[in-house]
């Protein structure tokens, strides 16, 4: 009986946790704030982040965002509205579709290519090392070996 109860409690906890995790993003998306959006969009006239801009155009843009927040629009909806007004250049980060996607894909591809090139380079270097015999370099012989031993003994702590 106890086992069944703890199983039921476990399932209930799992369901509640999953529900909370699933609800979290949508809950966050609806809490749009001017401070957050200002960091993600540009003042098209000043060419700086809206957060840093104080020009008359920036003031109008901020007021526009505040009006949309007051209407209960989400962050994504507000950014869409800004794009409809000022075009895609109003977004501080490139969009993740169309040609703008290359801004994200190119660095990743470049990283992979660089990693592969580095890996191939290391493999080739190791192969060349093996072809060279792979034996450790010979140490000093005869008098040299004796002198080296004496020196090492002198500095032995």
């Amino acid at each position, binding site marked *: 009986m106890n086992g069944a109860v703890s199983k039921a409690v476990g399932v209930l906890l799992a369901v509640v946790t999953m529900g909370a995790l699933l609800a979290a993003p949508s809950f966050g998306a609806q809490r749009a704030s001017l401070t957050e959006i200002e960091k993600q969009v540009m003042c*098209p*006239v000043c060419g700086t982040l809206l957060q840093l801009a104080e*020009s*008359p*155009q920036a*003031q*109008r*843009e901020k007021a*526009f965002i505040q009006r949309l927040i007051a209407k209960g629009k989400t962050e994504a909806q507000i950014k869409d509205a800004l794009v*409809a*007004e*000022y*075009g*895609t*250049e*109003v977004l501080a980060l490139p969009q993740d579709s169309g040609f703008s996607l290359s801004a994200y894909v190119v660095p990743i591809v470049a990283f992979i290519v660089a990693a592969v090139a580095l890996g191939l380079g290391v493999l080739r270097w190791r192969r060349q090392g093996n072809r060279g015999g792979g034996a450790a370099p010979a140490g000093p012989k005869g008098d040299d070996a004796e002198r080296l031993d004496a020196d090492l003994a002198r500095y032995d702590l």
Partner: protein
Amino acid sequence: MSVRSSIAVLAVLALVGLLVYGLVIKGGSRVGVGDPAPTTSLPQLEGGGDGSLAEYKGRWVLVNFWASWCEPCKQEAPALEAFQRQHGGAKFTVLGVDTRDLSGDGREFVREYGLSYPQLRDGDGGAAHDYGTTGVPENFLVDPAGKVRWLLPGPVDEQYLEEQVEPFLPQEKS
């Protein structure tokens, strides 16, 4: 030079070329007197549909770039409206281009100043870039053949319009 070195040099050259291309595209240069005026198609500020300077071929057109947040634009708007009422017709019109502005604010501006001349909307500043403007307001007088005959990177007033623009226009209104 080995094949690998050639590829590396080509890659670097391609990258530099791409950067230079980006700078050239961003830069843009001002349209000058005698140059053909860009005829970018833009949405109408009020009502649906698009419009373009090309629709006014055969007429003199004073293209006025403005924005509702711009103080000098507020000062010149009454002078432009008065000039339009005096000279507007089959041979001349003022054509407003509301640039980098919120459409609602732009429409409010038109109502507030009672502007009767046609208005286009240049939200992303593409047309302003094509003309090489550096701010607002800026004015370009385009002749019936579509060439820029006079320009002013700044606000106009009634005296300026009478002295600088009126002499270009045909004597009769229509």
